[in-house]
């Protein structure tokens, strides 16, 4: 294959699916997973571009994004657990107020 473009297309499709997931699911966990999917698709695009231009920087970015994603998951899950303890629910529609 002499082009990385199909990878980019796939990345876009996965990204869109992730967006859809964020928007149609109401469970905070599911939304969170969809976000992971989106991040992952972005990573794919970056790797594809790195391949396209024959440089390592894209891969470096992916490395950092993965690290940040790990941190994000840790904090995000901790938040979900805390909220679940308080509300007995992981439904984001129940969280429409900006107060505890």
């Amino acid at each position: 294959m002499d082009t990385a473009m199909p990878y980019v297309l796939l990345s876009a499709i996965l990204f869109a699916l992730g967006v859809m997931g964020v928007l149609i699911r109401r469970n905070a966990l599911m939304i969170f997973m969809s976000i992971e999917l989106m991040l992952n698709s972005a990573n794919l695009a970056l790797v594809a571009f790195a391949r396209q231009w024959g440089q390592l920087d894209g891969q470096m970015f992916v490395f950092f994004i993965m690290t940040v994603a790990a941190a994000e998951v840790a904090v995000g899950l901790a938040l979900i657990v805390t909220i679940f303890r308080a509300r007995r629910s992981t439904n984001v529609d129940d969280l429409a107020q900006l107060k505890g």
Partner: protein
Amino acid sequence: MNQLLFISPILFPLLGVLINATLGKRMSEKAIGWLASLLVVASFGVSLILFAQLGGAPEDERLTWGAISLGIPWIQAGALSVPFGFLIDPLSATMMLVVTGVGALIHIYSIGYMHGDPRFARFFVYLNLFVASMLVLVMADSFLLMFVGWELVGLCSYLLIGFWFTNIKNAEAGRKAFVVNRIGDVAFILGILLTFVTFGALTFADVFAGVARRGESVQAAVAAITLLLFIGATGKSAQIPLHVWLPDAMAGPTPVSALIHAATMVTAGIYMMARTHVMFEAAPSTQAVVALVGALTALVAGYTALTQFDIKRVLAYSTISQLGFMVAAAGLGAYVAGMFHLVTHAFFKALLFLAAGSVIHAMEHHGHHHHPADPQDMRNMGGLRAKLPLTFVVFLIGGLALAGVPPLAGFFSKDEIVLDALKHNLPVFVLLTISAIFTAFYVGRQLVMVFFGQPRSDMARHAQESPAIMTAPLVVLAALTVLGGALNLPGVGALGYWLSPAVGEFKTHPLDVGLAGLFTLIALGGLAAGWLVYRHAFTTPDLTDPLSRLGPLYALSKNAWYLDALYQAVVVKGFYTLSSFLASVLDLGGIDGIVNGVGRLARGVAGWLGRAQAGFVRAYGVLMLIGVVALVTYFLIVGANAR
């Protein structure tokens, strides 16, 4: 040094203002009163010295001899430069003597009159301030500096009319005087603005030189300027239609009425016209207006004075009427006659007012203290001839002078004015003649009502002569009233020749015996008529005026031609209505309404949008997505076009 001497007449009373305003609380009445009076006397003394020095100067130098500038400009911006410059020429020197001389007498009189007033010191502060301001007006060498004095005397008038301010009526009279004067002042200011735009200068000398040099080319401008200046004069000198403030100004203490509202301040308009006669003479159309307005004022006010009961109101309308004579003289170009009448009027009208003050003082202080009756109502008087012999004599002298009985001062000065009118302007002559008849009549009426017959109230019955400090100035003024005519006797014309460098060509003429006879007859006839009509009036509890039988004619006079009522109904009411309409409807409802309306609209839109911001994360997400899709679509389209 010379400069200091020249302006010291102004500085003396100002010193009095400073001392009495700051230390007056801790000084005794005597100290306050004499300090203030002596400072004005000092002013008078310096004025006399200056007058003598001016007289010693060669005649053709008298216009410039006393021109001084303090060297520091008052206003200097762009091309506009107004120095503190003063001018002592025959005209202003004469006026200075009148102001400080009569002023000093009235200061002394006030020591007695204001005795015991809780704001004694303040009264003398105001009086001194007035003298200083009036001298600024008189001595100014430029329009703008004259305007400073012009406004400041108005301020003093305001403060003194409302001197007993706890009575709201006095305060309102003061405000009315100030506001009506301000209307005239705005015209004055516009005249000054136009003068500067036309001539590029504001000093009298420069402007007059400009008028002389440019002649025809500035005629229209000069006509407009003089008309505006004259409107200013109608305010200050109480000419129709702006005369309505002066009768109300009688709310002030009587010495104030004598000094400000009879002898000096109200004559400022005539003085100003004499000062700027070069311009008025270059504007014949304005002069015609001036003469007519003056004569009409003389008639209208004289007619009103016929039926007033308040002793001071009679004199007030009489003042307006006499000012009308002077203004008419100025309009006829007879500035000497006008100034002559100004001087004699200052003597006899100050005398009349102070004598009236003596009467009121006697009525107030020696009658019942809890009198419900008005001590100024002539119907409560009567028979005071016996109680107040000295006051009676001086009042009689003043009254006869006012009526124009020879050989008192008023006769000669009035005679000169009507002679000029007869020569130049017949309608004005007719109006002035009728007015003279009225004058004699109301003087007779007043004399009878106040001094003859029997006392008609307890106050009148218990009246006692005023103290010497009040009567002494009366005697001096009476002497001046008797001798004042000598200033400018027909055929001699001392004052006329003295003033002529400043107010233009003068040539005395011998007494016109026919005219003098006619006016003597008018004076005596009017006095007799007043005597006859009022000899037995008001003796019964029925207090109606014998003249009330004239019906509408009486009502017209009694209500001062309904002018006050008209102004009240149209101008004052109209202003109130306009003001509350603008404030509540246009401002709060309209302009502020629009502002708040925009605010409400914004809040409405925000509320509508806010419902989308209910906190549902997924809703936000969709909105974001809409944005993303829109952006992508946009770039697709742009990209497509770019290719």
